[in-house]
């Protein structure tokens, strides 16, 4: 097992190099440079100043040299300095955005799991019943509804008209003056709408997946056996069927690890949440290469690790895979 993990880890190195190289090249293929965004159509910027900026950012070097310089920085765990006007280290910019993004995404995944698993199970055992049809309708409604539209409706309705939830941000203006547990409540109060909106959209995939697995499992012979030996239906479903139906969930969880740091631009923009999605989007618009690469590297790393975790978790959970 250990050897397997080590081998997989080693294989990640060439993969990462490949990913970063392709990303680096593709990003530079997009027309425009960071210096353009800062100087174009600005009557007060001269040509010399543009050259100075290019020189500072090493933009006149050949692309492969630029990539090399970037890799040398990266192996020292330095993501470099942002090309944006604030010239801050990319590491700081990412670190200050990560916690809230991870918090919202974890809460939303938890909410999805907590709802999707029971919905999937009940829909499967009562296949074609009222609950099945009703829940299908509901989750597909959530899936097809644009999240920004739902968000705005909820904000206008629950936030402005009834004043039940704060409209934007992740904490109140007087946050500093609140006591400890009130601060926690304040943040949860602010996160309720965003987490609901993002979970509602993600419910469909997961619950349908759960339902399909369950349907498959309850047709297996061992379920028939369990029923035949007279077990109560509750035990048949929860002990014998559910465990097997949950197995693929591990894969999905593994795949959602990179999603933990990803954010949605539209979503964050509407709720004014300072998250990764907006950071990345602004980075792309500014052609802020170090920032884009920083986010991509972390994303790529997490994807690879997530895949590895899923495989390992699978092996632990399922003896049949372990034996192979």
């Amino acid at each position, binding site marked *: 097992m250990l050897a397997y993990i080590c081998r997989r880890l080693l294989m990640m190195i060439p993969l990462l190099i490949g990913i970063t190289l392709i990303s680096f090249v593709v990003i530079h293929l*997009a*027309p*425009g440079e960071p210096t*353009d*965004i*800062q*100087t*174009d*159509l*600005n*009557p*007060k*910027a*001269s*040509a*010399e*100043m*543009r050259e*100075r*900026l290019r020189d*500072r950012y090493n933009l006149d070097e050949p692309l492969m040299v630029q990539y090399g310089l970037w890799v040398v920085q990266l192996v020292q765990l330095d993501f470099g300095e942002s090309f*944006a*006007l*604030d*010239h*801050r280290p990319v590491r700081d*910019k990412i670190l*200050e*955005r990560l916690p809230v993004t991870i918090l919202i995404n974890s809460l939303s995944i938890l909410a999805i799991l907590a709802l999707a698993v029971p919905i999937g199970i009940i829909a499967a055992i009562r296949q074609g019943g009222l609950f099945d049809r009703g829940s299908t309708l509901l989750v597909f409604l959530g899936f097809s509804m644009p999240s920004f539209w739902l968000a*705005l409706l909820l*904000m*206008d309705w629950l*936030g*402005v008209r009834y*004043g039940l939830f*704060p*409209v*934007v*941000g*992740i*904490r109140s*203006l*007087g946050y500093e*003056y609140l006591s400890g547990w009130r601060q926690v409540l304040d943040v949860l109060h602010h996160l309720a709408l965003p987490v609901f909106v993002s979970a509602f959209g993600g419910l469909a995939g997961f619950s349908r997946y759960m339902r399909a697995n369950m349907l498959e499992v309850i047709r297996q012979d061992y379920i028939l056996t369990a029923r035949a030996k007279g077990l109560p239906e509750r035990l048949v479903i929860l002990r014998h069927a559910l465990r097997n139906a949950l197995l693929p969930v591990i894969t999905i969880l593994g795949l959602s690890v990179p999603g933990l740091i990803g954010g949605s631009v539209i979503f*964050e*923009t*509407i*709720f*004014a*949440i*300072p*998250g990764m999605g*907006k950071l990345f989007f*602004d980075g792309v*618009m500014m*052609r802020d290469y170090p920032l884009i690469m920083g986010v991509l590297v972390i994303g790529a790393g997490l994807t690879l690790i997530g895949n590895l975790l899923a495989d390992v978790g699978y092996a632990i959970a399922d003896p049949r895979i372990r034996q192979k």
Partner: protein
Amino acid sequence: MPLRAFNPFFVILILAAGLLAGCDQAPPASVPTQGITVPAFGDTFIEASIGEPSNLLPVLSSDSASSEINGLVYSGLIRYNRDLRLEGELAESWEVSDDGLIMTFHLRHGVVWHDGAPFTSADVLFTYQMYIDPQVPTSYAEDFRQVADLQTPDPWTVRVTYKQPYAPALESWGTPIHPRHLLEGVDVTKSPLSRMPIGTGPYRFIEWQSGEKLVLEANSDYYEGAPYIRRVVYRIIPDSTTQFLELLSGGLDFMGLTPLQYSKRTDTPAFQRSFNKYRYLSFSYSYLGYNLRKPLFQDQRLRQAISYAINKQEIVDGVLLGMGQVATGPYKPDTWVYNPNIRRYDYNPEQARALLEEAGWFDLDHDGVRERGEEKLSFTIVTNQGNDLRVRSAEILQRRLKEVGIDVQIRVVEWATFLKEFIFPGNFDATILGWSGGPEPDQYNIWHSSKTGPRDLNFIHYKNSEVDALLERGRRTFDQQERKQIYDRFQEILAEEQPYTFLYVGEALPVVAARFRGIEPSPAGIRYNFIRWYVAADEQKYAR
């Protein structure tokens, strides 16, 4: 100030902030009914910014979120007052020598930086040196490169000598003065001041939570007296709809509205009780510019015909919902430099058809599109993504041009690509863009024939030797009467030749929470006297 880039983000920000404010051509929609109230200190003013400020060192920043905050934290030597005339800020007075070459500023005594250090002429000298330092990546060096010499004979006097008389130079001394004692000998791009500025302005910096908010507090030592409003909070809310919802729920005290929000969502009694609305023309205009390198557009009659065929009032009504005016030239209609006596192109399709036929364009095959020989009268308008007003303008004028037999396609492209692939290489037929500017009428960078290089602003390649001469003379002349004559002629020529079809001048549409008093709309907008705004003691909302 010459004109600033009309980046899509700027557009939104300018609309939102009403920063480059203009005159109150129309009276405010509702005049605040002010009882007799006594100015009191205290309360918090909360506004929203679409974007996070990039950098709070003015030398490095060029976005309007940063400049708005920097405007409260820093001061320049001079500034525009309520009537858009220059007045002293850190300078008590100044003189310009008769030949226009030497400017002498007499500085205020007793001004201190927010950290307590005294402000002297050495700070001015340092600021100038920093702006022209090749190591400092600033976008604003150009004005200071015209300076031949800057001397500080004593701590309260600054004497600037120019290579040539340069009228826009005076305005450039409104540039924020930076603290020498904190920046000398350090790499400015690494300076902590970019995240916690120290200036001489009416508000001092308190804290900045990235992506969330930025807090300023009144500077009780401010040399014009402490501002009444104790705190200013900028909340970063990147979506205009969300900002509006937050305004409605009471979380914001100020917002620049879109025409749609202003006209459709502010007439409820609740809104009118809580907010005062203002509107005035902004210092910006939109235009349809023709690429004059294309043979098609070199025919003046065609350009004039297009100008006649476009119903500009219809665009103002349809796109701005009437919150704006038809533009006739590069200057705002209520400024001293604006020339009303020029050729106008009111909607006149008959005139347009006549001009097209005079130029040889006929629709002989009756397919709705005119042709001359083999050539079809067809072109593409390219504009940038992220500005719906421009796209909608394009759609409206596309229909009008079709009616006179001109086929128009519309192409919308992301900003960086738009500039790099279309505008600068001259790879376009016509474009809808905008310029924003200020009270200074110098237009050299946009219309002079020397500014047609690969990245210059005269990207339509307009060349006219009389205009060149006028622009050169205008920026060397200080006398306003004389400048007026020069720029009047300049506007006449542009109106005759129509290198742009000028479309519209938008309006700034700010709303302010009703508890704030002391707001006096003027040609400079409403924000110029912010330090005199106040909330009466019994109406204050925030104790901290």
